[in-house]
Structures are given as C-alpha cells and as structure tokens.
C-alpha cells in the first residue's frame, strides 16, 4: 500500500478511536452539571450519589480521551508535513487557542472535579464541574473551527509558489466564522450531548431492568431523557442547516451523500439504498425530488450532480459517503423516536413499566456513537480528494520524509495499543456499572432518607 492510503487509514483510525471519548465527556459534563446542581439545590443524597457515580465514569472516559487525543495534535506534523506547512498559519492558531483556552481549563479543574469532593466546599466543586464542562465545550469550538476552515476556507490568501505555497490569515474572524463553522459546531456539540445522555439512559435502563438502585436510576433516567428529547429534536435543525450549507459550499459532497450524478435532473432523497457507481445511479427507497426540496424548496429543481465535476475533483468513494450519511440520519431518527416515545410514556406515567423499551434503551448507547462516527466519515470522505477544499489535495499533503514502513510500524503499534485500551475500558466500565452508584450500607441510608417531596422523584 502506498503512503497516502496508509497515512489516511492511520489518521482515520486514531481520530475515530479518540472520538469515542470527547463527545462522552462533553455530554456527561452537562449531565453532571445538572445532577450536581440538583444536589446543591435540594440537598438530596440521591443526587449526590448519582453525581459521584458519574464523576467516576467521567474520569475513566476523560483519561482515555486525553491519552488518545495527544496523538492527534502531533500526527499533523508526523504524517502530514506538507499540509502542516500549508495550513500552519491558520490551523495552528486555532490549535494553540484550543490548548490555552480549552484544555488548560478542562484539565486544571478536572483535578478538583475528581479528587476535590472532600477538599473544597460544595459550591466550589460545582463551579469546577461547570468549568470542566465549559472547557470541553471550548475544546470542540477550536477544533471544529479548524476543520470547518478545511471544508469552507475563508479569511485567508495564498502566498508563495511551488513547495513554499501556503495559506495565510488575512481576517481572523472571517477565518473563525467561515461559512460552515457555526452550523458544524452546533451539530457537533449537540451530537456530543446526545452521546452523554444516551450513556446515562442506557446504564439506568439496565438498573431498572435488573431492579437495582431504583431510587437513583429512575430520576437519573428522567434527567437524561429530558436532555435527549430536547437535543435530539434540536439536532434536526442543525442538521438541516448544515445540509443547506453543504449544498451552497460543497456541492460535490452534497451530490455524493445522495449519489446524485446528473446535473440536469431533480435530486432524490433516499431513506436507504446504495450507489451503483458504474451505472452512476443510486438505488433504494427514496422520496422523489426530496433533496431538491430540501435545498431549494422545490421538488423539481435540478441539483448539481457529480458528473459536472472532473474525476479528480470529486469524491471517488460515493457509495461509502452515501452509506455513512444515511447511517447517521437513521441513528438520529431512532434517537428522536425513542426519546419522544419515552417522554410520552412518562407523561402517561408508564415510563418504567415496559421492559422491552428499557431493553432498547440499554442498547441505545450505540446510536449516538454510530451517528458520530458516520457523520465524521461523511464529512471527511465527502470532502475528498481535497484536504483543504478546492485548495490542497490530500495526496499532496503528506510528509515527504516519512516512508510506508514507518507508517506501518506506527499503525500496528497504535492498533495493538488501542485494542488493549478498548478492552480495558469496557472491562472497567462494566465493573463500575455493575458495582453501581452506591455500596450496600449507603443504600440503607437512602432508603430511610429519600421520602421527600420532589417532583422528579415521583413517577
């Protein structure tokens, strides 16, 4: 295999693995803020136990996120030296801002969040929790800005020639607020919050099925359900807005997600199917003219197709982009359906009575994870063959001094390390979940002390 494909596989693998964790930290961050806030407000021990339980899980997730994240910052330099020189002026400043504004905040207060429960007063601890959550939100800001600039470059000019050609900032805020930044940032934030909410739903659904820790599991489930319902609906809006942005700024990507080739024809919207790239046609179940309607508000409007791009300037893996995109959409729709149905049952006071629904919720933790990965694959494969859209091709972005052997070495190394890491993560997560939020003695205290008037407690 050549250096380009190896370097891409390595990047996709390391970032894909890393990206399991940061969204969970962001999402759990929000849940922790809510739970700890309720504990401070009500003084109810149940929320204390729930908060401390999720802090322990948060620590585990955050730890792996940090360990795998540090690779990413340096992989641009190790594997993509030409890219680094080309975008350093822009991408580098976003990354530097991320380190100093986001990671320092997050990692600094993390110590207090995890180890400070008995050291600082409850309000100081609560503030630390909020700051860790903010830090994680900010860290998403800068990296998504940097990536969005690669999708829709703005606020720069090109200088130099030949090997020294590179992009330089002309307008910092135009670079930060490039056409896709805001849409994509909101989309990523909400996706991350859903990842956290569904993890909490899943774990508590499992306790409810097993009839364990019910005093804690039920209110925790409800908190996460509210978060899931609100944000899964909001995600529809940011998704729609993103798609319109893609239509305007990255027409080749838009055409690829629905396998649309013919520029003179209206574009359909598929529910599922596949792209026959030889015959240049997508097949499956579709809404005729759906994409035309989404973009132009008219079912018959022609949409620019893949055929209008030169072969070397449009994604070559059209079917893969199509599948990832539809996988993301499907997961999003199931999340909406589940959280709305759950909320309806809560209103009818039958939420915890349906065991089959709880079983689905146990497995629902996979939905946001699949959607996150598939969404990023869509965004990144749909941008190909460009690494910076319209400016720099992925094949021109590599490190010239790095050989295929070196990449194979590091790829094998990371694969082995990450397999071990993932196995240990699942093992420890499972242990923590089975152990549950309270020891047996504390359970008795809760049983005697939890009979307070609290709307969220009664079901």
């Amino acid at each position: 295999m050549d250096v380009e494909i190896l370097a891409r596989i390595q990047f996709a693998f390391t970032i894909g693995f890393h990206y399991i964790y940061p969204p969970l930290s962001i999402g759990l961050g929000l849940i922790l803020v809510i739970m700890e806030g309720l504990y401070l407000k009500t003084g109810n021990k149940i929320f204390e136990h729930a908060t401390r339980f999720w802090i322990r899980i948060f620590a585990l997730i955050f730890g792996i996120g940090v360990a795998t994240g540090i690779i990413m910052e340096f992989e641009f330099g190790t594997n993509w030296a030409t890219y680094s020189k080309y975008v350093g002026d822009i991408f580098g400043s976003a990354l530097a801002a991320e380190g100093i504004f986001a990671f320092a905040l997050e990692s600094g207060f993390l110590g207090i969040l995890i180890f400070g429960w008995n050291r600082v007063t409850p309000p100081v601890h609560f503030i630390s929790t909020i700051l860790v959550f903010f830090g994680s939100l900010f860290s998403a800001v800068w990296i998504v800005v940097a990536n969005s600039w690669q999708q829709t470059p703005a606020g720069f000019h090109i200088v130099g020639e030949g090997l020294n050609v590179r992009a330089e900032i002309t307008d910092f805020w135009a670079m930060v607020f490039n056409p896709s930044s805001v849409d994509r940032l909101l989309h990523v934030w909400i996706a991350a919050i859903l990842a956290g909410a569904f993890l909490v739903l899943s774990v508590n659904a499992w306790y409810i099925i097993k009839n364990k820790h019910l005093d804690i599991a039920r209110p925790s489930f409800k908190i996460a359900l509210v978060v899931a319902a609100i944000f899964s609906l909001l995600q529809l809006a940011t998704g729609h807005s993103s798609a319109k942005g893609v239509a305007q700024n990255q027409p080749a990507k838009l055409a690829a997600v629905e396998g649309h080739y013919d520029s003179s024809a209206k574009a359909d919207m598929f529910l599922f199917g596949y792209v026959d790239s030889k015959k240049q046609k997508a097949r499956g179940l579709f809404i005729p003219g759906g994409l035309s309607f989404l973009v132009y508000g008219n079912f018959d409007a022609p949409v620019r197709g893949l055929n209008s791009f030169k072969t070397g300037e449009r994604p070559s893996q059209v079917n893969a982009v199509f599948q990832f995109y539809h996988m993301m959409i499907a997961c999003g729709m199931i999340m909406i359906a589940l959280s709305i149905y759950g909320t309806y049952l809560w209103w009818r006071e039958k939420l915890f009575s349906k065991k089959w629904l709880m079983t689905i919720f146990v497995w629902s933790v996979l939905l946001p994870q699949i959607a996150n990965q598939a969404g990023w694959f869509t965004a990144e494969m749909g941008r190909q063959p460009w690494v910076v859209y319209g400016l720099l091709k992925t094949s021109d972005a590599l490190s010239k001094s790095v050989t295929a052997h070196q990449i194979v070495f590091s790829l094998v190394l990371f694969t082995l390390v990450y397999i071990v890491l993932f196995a240990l993560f699942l093992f420890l997560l499972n242990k923590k979940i089975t152990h549950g939020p309270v020891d047996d003695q504390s359970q008795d205290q809760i049983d005697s002390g939890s009979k307070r008037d609290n709307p969220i407690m009664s079901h």
Partner: protein
Amino acid sequence: MFLGIDYNVWWYLVFGAVISGYAILDGFDLGAGALHLFLNKEESRRIAINAIAPIWDGNEVWLVIGGGALFAGFPVAYAAIFSAFYVPFMIFLVGLIFRGIAIEFRSKEPMLWWRKTWDIVYCVSCIIISLSLGLMLGNVVQGLPLNGDKEFAANWIFFFNPFGIMVSVTTLALFMMHGAIYLTMKTRNRLYAKLHLLANNFTIFFVISFVITTLYTLLFIPHLSDYFRGHPQLFIVPILMILCIANIPRQIKRGKFRYAFLSSSATIALLLIMVAIEAFPYLLYSPQSPQNSITIHNAASSKETMKILLIIALIGTPLVGIYTSFVFWTFKGKVKLDDMSY
C-alpha cells in the same frame, strides 16, 4: 514589532517559556513515575500516585500548548521536527498513552497483581517518555541533516548518536531528581525518609551525567558554545545554573525540600534558556548543509498570525496561571488519602 522586539523573537520566547513550563511541571510527574518501582510497599506507591494524580493532566496540557505554539508560529519547523522524529516521537506518544491510563486504571481493581502490573507499566512508560524526550532534545541541539525541502534527510538510526544518548540519560536523571524532591514534599515518616535518600542518590546520578555531557560538548561539539564565547556577559546563565545545581544537594541535606524543588525547577529553566541562546535564531540547525537550516524567520507564520498569537498568549497565559495556582493550592501539603483518591 511589539515593544521594540520582532514578533518572531517574541514567539520564540513564548514557545521556549511553554516548553520550560512543560519540562518543569511534567518533569516532576515523569520523575516521580520513573522512580515508582523504587518504592516497595503498596501503600507507598499509592501515596506516590496520589501525589500527582490531581495535577499531572494539567501539567501535560503544557505539551499540547507547546505543540500548538510551534504549529501556529513556526509551521515549517513543526512539520520538519515531527516528521523527522517520526519513530522516537511515536514511541514517546505511546509512552504518554500508557502513563495516563496506568494512573487511571491502577486503582480501579484491588488485586495485587493488577496493581503491580500497572506499577510496572507506569514506571517503564515514564522512563521511556523521559529518555525519548531527551533523545529528541539532544538531536535538536546538535542539528539534523535537512534537504532543500527542509525535511529530514537521514534514517532514524541517526538519532542514536553519543550526544543524543547522553542528553537522553541526563534528562532522565534530571527528572528523577526533580520528581524525588517533589515527592518528599508530599510525604511523611518512613516514606519521606526513603524519598529523602532517593533524592540524594538521583542528585548524584544527575550531576555525574550532567558533567559528562558538558565535557563531551565542550570537547567534541565546540560550536555549541561559540555564542557564549562571543558574548561573555551571557556566562551569567551557566553560572546561575551551576549555583542552582549546587544548591540542590545543600537544601536536600538541610531537609528544605521546597527550596530544593525551586532550585531544580530553576535548573531546568536555565538549562533550556542555555539551549535557546545557543540555538538562536535556529529552530533546527543542519550542520551538514547550513543553508537548509530552519530559523525563526524562514519557518514563521505571517505577521497577522503572529499578532493574533501574541494576543491569544497575553489573554491565555494569566488565565492558565490562575487556574494552575488554584488547583495546586487546593492540593497543597502532604498527600491525604480519602474515598475519592486513586
């Protein structure tokens, strides 16, 4: 220009300060890890881990900031350095992964074999991180063969030259001394006595390797000290450093570990200042073909970016200073284990 100094020089100073911050802060975490297996009892090891557990993550962020600072300010150097050091850097990164997860995972199971395994992983990865960091530093100081594209023009075996190896071992010794001193500040009684002894021994280890490396440099790589010979007033830096180093065993003997810690922190900073003075204005020197060398001028980002970066640094640095101090203050004093400890 800002305050009469060129932006590129400012950013060189900022980058140097961040790297020194990293070496001082993560230096004691790594040193504490590298001497971990010298502690025999489970209780002692647990205290040692908890002495750094709440803060190591914040300390490691300085590396991330340093990487971002280099990428942003001197992208050509970032590209050249990390693609050149591909193999040692990947090993360094895997070391960082295992250091982090060892701290995280160790306490999660009570079985002795589990904890002992993670103790070994933790200690070995800290040693590997320190050695590879030193190896890369030594090679940057000495210079690398670069081609016309300013990319590395040799094979990774090149890094294992005598100077690289000496700097590598000296870095490990320095961190172990620094880490041992840190741990003495955080412990009591028998563990304190043991660490007191270790701090003493690692100081001897450091002084020996430092003297050998210095003699080798003066004898075999004379060009590294050229700049100092030309500017005798700069001899204040090595003289201060020697005073700091001499102060370390003195304070250890007196049992004043806070002062010993300040001295070892200052030693690290002064060593890096010396490296920075010698290197200036080169970020990566190529002795084989000086015209291909990477300097703070030919590797720099645009003026506009440099300005933005300085603004980011001016806003960000005080904030980071505030949170770091607050967190260190929260966990000040001897380690106290409680139900949230690792």
